[in-house]
Structures are given as structure tokens and as C-alpha cells.
């Protein structure tokens, strides 16, 4: 790749880095929201059962 490696590798690295970070953040927040949702659903169920 010669002298141009200095320009090529940062490009590919930036692409992989940014895409991985955005991917991880999106995946992680989706999972957290899913957990939160399940937990709140359980709480509501409990509340309803108490009322009964």
C-alpha cells in the first residue's frame, strides 16, 4: 500500500470505529429499554393483582 497506507488505514479505522460505537449504543439502549419495559409490566401486574 506504500505511502498511502497513512491515509487509507485511518479511513477504514474511523469507519469501523464509528459504526461499531453507534451500533453498540443502539443495541445497548434497545436492550435496556426492553428490560425496563418488562420490569414495569411486572410491577403493573403485581399492582393489579393486589387490587383484586
Amino acid at each position, binding site marked *: *500500500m*506504500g*505511502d*498511502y*497506507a497513512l*491515509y*487509507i488505514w*485511518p*479511513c*477504514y479505522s*474511523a*469507519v*469501523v470505529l*464509528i*459504526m461499531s460505537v*453507534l*451500533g453498540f449504543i*443502539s*443495541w445497548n*439502549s*434497545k436492550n435496556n*429499554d*426492553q428490560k*425496563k*419495559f418488562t420490569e*414495569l*409490566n411486572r*410491577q*403493573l401486574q403485581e*399492582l*393489579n393483582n*393486589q*387490587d383484586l
Partner: protein
Amino acid sequence: MLMHKFANPARFLRISKIIAPWCFILTMISLVIGLYWGLFIAPDDYQMGSAYRIIFVHVPASYMSMFCYGFMAFASAVGIIWKHPLADQSARAAAPIGAAFTALALFTGSLWGKPMWGTYWIWDARLTSELVLLFLYFGYMAVWQAVDDQSKAARIAAIVALVGVINVPIIKFSVDWWNTLHQPASIIKSGGASIHPDMLWPLLICILAFNLYFITILLWRIQSLILQRQIRGLRLRIAEGTNNG
């Protein structure tokens, strides 16, 4: 009719949970193949030597930066006209992905420009309009952050997205309408692609990979936004329940 069924948030969640993992796997496969092919297998260019290999990330990122904005504007228009929350959420979910692609397009383009053109940056029509695109994404995301009332935020953000969509054809045709340092289109142009098949194939695979990446991340982010909305609803109901009890 299909659109209508898919537009139900609960159904969307169910279907997207099945699709997203497959999209993720396909993204990884095509991205590894495309990047490896571009870096190590594709032949050197007769003018630019190996420096042209930046094309395999630069062109997909630039193309996706515009495609993503188009998607965002379309979803915003659907949101304004049909007042469907899923359309607003799709647009909102697409914005950070588009901003990331735009930033990558500018960064890789700059690193390609230095050795070939002799400069990292020049204020020509193509580069300037792409930078404007980045600011449009930032503006769009800022609206969602700044406005507390979600339905109001959706409306203002949608207007920002629709006004900004004018910039997309300007980016695409800037190299034809004005003289620029940036070269004209190589793939999508009249008379067919002016790029050798040995270089075109890895480029097309990279474009496919970036598209699949967009779909994967978009599905995850929409899931997140739908869940957040449902969480707000649940919190309200729990609070009511405890108060009444």
C-alpha cells in the same frame, strides 16, 4: 395495506425483533467481505495507485448520508400528513445514523483529498453542501432534544427535515451544475459506470453492507423509541394505580 399492518407499533416490534438479528448477521458478513476485498484484493488504480482504496468506504458513506436524509424526509412527510407516531419515530431513529455517515464521508473524503488533490478541504459546491447536510442532521436532532412536548417536537423536526431535503439533490448534482474540485459521478450516471468491474464489485458489496447496517441500526433504534413510549405509558398507569390504591 401491508404498510398499514406494519405501522402498528406492537406488530412492528414483533416483526422487527425477528428481522433485526438476520440483518445484523448479513451486515457483518457483507461488511467483512467488502472491506477486505477493497483493502487487499481490488487492483491498484492506474492514476491514484492504492490511495483510491478509500473509495470503498467514502462512496458508501456519502451515498448513505444522502439516502438516510431522503428516508428521514419521507418519514417526516408521512408523519405530518397521516399523523402516525411510528413515522415520526422512524425519522428520529434515522437521524444519528445519517449524521454518522455524513461525518465519515467528510472525514474519509478529506483524507483522500490530501494526497490526491493536495488539500484536506476546499469550499467547493460538493464539499460545502455535504457539510451543510451534517448541520441539518444536527439541527434535526437538536429539535428533538430541545422541545419537551413529543408531538410538538415531531412536527417541528419534520419541518426541518422537509426544508433540508432540498439540499440532497444539490449535493448529488453539485458536480454537474458548478465546476468543483470534486470529480463527477462514477457509478450512477448516463452511459454506465466508469469504473472497472474489478473495482466496482467490492464497491457494490460495501454499499450493500452499509445499507444493511442502516436497516439493522434503524430497527434497533425504532424498537428503543417505541419501548420508551410504552415505558412512559406504564409509569403513568403505575403512578395512577398507587395513588388510587
